[in-house]
């Protein structure tokens, strides 16, 4: 009897241990190279964002098929393919034939890594990241939503302009890919028949490395190593020879330079203000409207997050006033009281689904932020629609320009109206989400998401209603979470949609979507 008991115990124990091994949790989007739905032969004519001509960066004429020079390059590429290590083959499958998606993913991961709010000093003051000394705590950058939205716009625009130029040259020179020129070279991906000079992968690798290195200076070595691995994979994969890659690197480096020149003077470096400037912005609102937002943390953060992000240069919206909403209802007014009552009701009776929505869209500190969340959706949509690299870049460029424009407009409204958060206006109010360090009106989530959903709807009309539903959900998530009033959410969505309309109008000029 005793023995019987113990053996049952043991059996149950081993059965459980055997069946409960933890699966590997995904650290990247799982997809492989694919057949592009089309090649967009005319993409070289699309409207550039930062450049004036698709030959602004001159390329040497590539060596002709059968030339000794090209034969040598083919032989080298073949040797690389034949001698590929398992790590190199793994890199080929990781980067795929649409590697922009991986660079975007790396950007989101870095945004997450650097999205930590500074902790207070012992004396109750708060330190500020110093771009001149990035490794000193708090590390530079603090990759909050405005920073991340701007970073993604520069990354995507540089990739886009670079690929438009690459496409122009591809169809100008019409050099076949290495796997077509030499039957002994096998393409690791679907044989898309895309011309290979210059290498679109090398454009993306180089431009992305340079933009991200400027945005995340402490990641310089990590990014250089990633780019090196990516560039090498282009040869191992059997789709490029060395001169394709070198030409791509040329374009990538130049477009990044143009983009970073814009970034260096776009006003971002003044966005985080001094206390004096911050107080004067607050007082202006107090005089104009009779209210002012105050940070509620202990110790108090006396300067909100990037009060002058509103002055950062816009991409497609002519000026912030063009998308500035009317004033929010005054605290104490009937509309305000209605909204405050609603917030208390949510706090006391939050449904499981509302809680899920609040947390799903939280995208707060230590995450890729709402702009990152929408970039993730875009990535999945691109793969589902099998877009080619230049078409992919187009989606991301217009998406991220609209998102950052919406953010700049949103930040203008936030500090122009300087509207207090629910935890400031409703006595004793507690929330399930952390209240961010900036005014309430309009909601950043709503604004970013309203813009993103419209751009996505433009490029992927079949799923338009899904994107708009997500945007509304993202906007409501902040109301469920107790950190925004309904009118913040509504005005934010409208503002975001308006920002997107300027981007979409520009995209339509190409007449290809």
């Amino acid at each position, binding site marked *: *009897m*005793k023995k019987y*008991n*113990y053996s049952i*115990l043991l059996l*149950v*124990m081993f059965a*459980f*241990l055997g069946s*409960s091994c*933890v699966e590997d*949790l*995904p*650290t*990247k*989007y799982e997809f492989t190279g694919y057949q592009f739905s089309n090649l967009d032969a005319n993409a070289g004519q699309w409207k550039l964002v930062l450049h004036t001509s698709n030959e602004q960066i001159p390329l040497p004429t590539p060596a002709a098929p059968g030339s000794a020079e090209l034969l040598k390059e083919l032989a080298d590429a073949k040797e690389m393919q034949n001698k590929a290590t398992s790590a190199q083959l793994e890199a080929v499958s990781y980067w795929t034939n649409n590697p922009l998606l991986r660079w975007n*993913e790396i950007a*989101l*991961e870095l945004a*997450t*890594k650097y999205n*930590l*709010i*500074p*902790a207070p000093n012992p004396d109750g003051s708060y330190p500020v990241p110093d771009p001149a000394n990035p490794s000193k*705590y*708090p590390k530079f950058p603090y990759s909050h939503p405005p920073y991340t939205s701007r970073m993604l716009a520069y990354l995507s625009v540089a990739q886009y302009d670079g690929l438009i130029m690459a496409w122009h040259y591809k169809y100008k020179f019409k050099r076949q890919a290495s796997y077509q020129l030499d039957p002994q070279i096998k393409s690791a991906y679907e044989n898309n028949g895309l011309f290979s000079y210059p290498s679109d992968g090398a454009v993306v690798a180089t431009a992305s490395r340079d933009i991200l290195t400027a945005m995340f200076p402490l990641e310089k070595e990590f990014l250089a190593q990633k780019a090196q691995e990516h560039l090498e994979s282009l040869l191992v994969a059997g789709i490029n020879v060395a001169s394709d890659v070198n030409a791509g690197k040329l374009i990538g480096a130049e477009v990044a330079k143009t983009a970073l020149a814009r970034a260096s003077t776009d006003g971002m470096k003044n966005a985080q203000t001094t206390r004096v400037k911050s107080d004067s912005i607050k007082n202006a609102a107090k005089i104009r409207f009779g209210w002012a937002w105050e940070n*509620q*943390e*202990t*110790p108090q953060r006396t300067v909100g997050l990037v009060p002058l992000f509103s002055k950062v240069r816009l991409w497609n919206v002519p000026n912030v006033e063009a998308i500035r909403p009317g004033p929010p209802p005054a605290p104490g007014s009937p509309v305000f009281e209605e909204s405050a009552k609603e917030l208390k009701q949510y*706090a006391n009776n939050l449904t*499981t689904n509302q*809680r*899920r929505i609040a*947390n*799903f869209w*939280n*995208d707060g*500190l*230590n*995450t*890729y932020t709402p702009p990152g*969340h929408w970039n*993730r959706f875009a990535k999945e949509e691109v793969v589902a629609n099998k877009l080619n690299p230049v078409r992919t870049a187009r989606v991301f460029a217009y998406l991220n320009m609209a998102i950052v424009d919406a953010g700049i407009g949103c930040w203008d409204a936030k500090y122009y109206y300087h509207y207090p958060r629910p*935890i400031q206006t409703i006595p004793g*109010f*507690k*929330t*399930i989400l*952390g*209240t961010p360090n900036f005014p309430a009106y309009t909601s950043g989530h709503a604004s970013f998401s309203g813009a993103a959903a419209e751009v996505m709807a433009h490029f992927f009309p079949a799923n338009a209603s899904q994107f708009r539903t997500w945007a509304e959900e993202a906007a409501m998530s902040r109301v469920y979470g107790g950190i925004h009033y309904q009118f913040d959410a509504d005005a934010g969505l409208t503002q975001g949609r308006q920002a997107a309309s300027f981007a979409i109008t520009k995209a339509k000029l190409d007449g290809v979507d």
Partner: protein
Amino acid sequence: MKNYFRFLSLLCASLGLLSIANAQTPLDGLMMPKGEICIALQYDQVSWDRYWEGSTTRVNQNIGTFTKQMGMPMIVGGITDKLNVILSLPYVKTEASAGQLTGVQGIQDFGLSLKALLLEKSIGKGKLTGFSNLSFSMPASNYLSDYMPFSLGFGANELGIRAIGKYELDKGPYLRASYSYLHRGVTEAERDFYYAGQNAYYTAKMDVPNAFLGQVTLGSWMFKKKLRVEASLTAIKSTSGDDIRVYSMPQPTNKVDFDRVEGFAQYYFKTNGGFGLIASYQKAISGRNMGQFSGYGLGITYQFKAF
């Protein structure tokens, strides 16, 4: 044989940033005879105003003093003289004295545990006993684990296996040691992206680290076995996991370690069943990704012969 019983160990209330709250009774060195049932109601409260962020101490004035209370009904039954079953279902409430984040309350994890007496041998002027234990716990409500430090628990299934040895002198003093392995599953967050240990994860699933738990206890029976007192040292070490990032929120993936000292007393009004009272005190003395907690527990027990 006297009905020496006990159902709630001092470990019942391992509260702090991460709850490892239930299925700890299995750790003690006592058995209920066949047909005896014991019902217990235990209340524990722990609080902290500092926590370990990684292994450095952090004070956050937006939390102030964090308090976790737990009320736990528990049933222990003797299936045979050498096999006991233990059931528990704690109700947990958390709150912070400062800041804007709301506390939560609700039913935490259902615990089921079997304890077997494997060895019983007289040696010198005392007796050596050995036990093994298998425990299982699972979330009993849809509480959100990814809301730390307020979450009710870590939101994953846990399987525990333990070895317990005890040497008790006939005069009353005893020494007990145990070693446990706690195997945890994954918990489900409500977001499908998070960052842990230098990696971004594209899933709502979070891996809750497994842990080893070691405990050494010195105790004694007094007053004709009506009173029992114990002092213990407990160490918990996670086998994996990441540190809380600077000034950031903890999450279920964190590597939670701590060492704790405890004092425990149990008083029996009669020596063969009926009512008993429990009082305990616990304090964390070192740790990682965990509140620097201290707190007390009170319990009432009732034992009777059921069959």
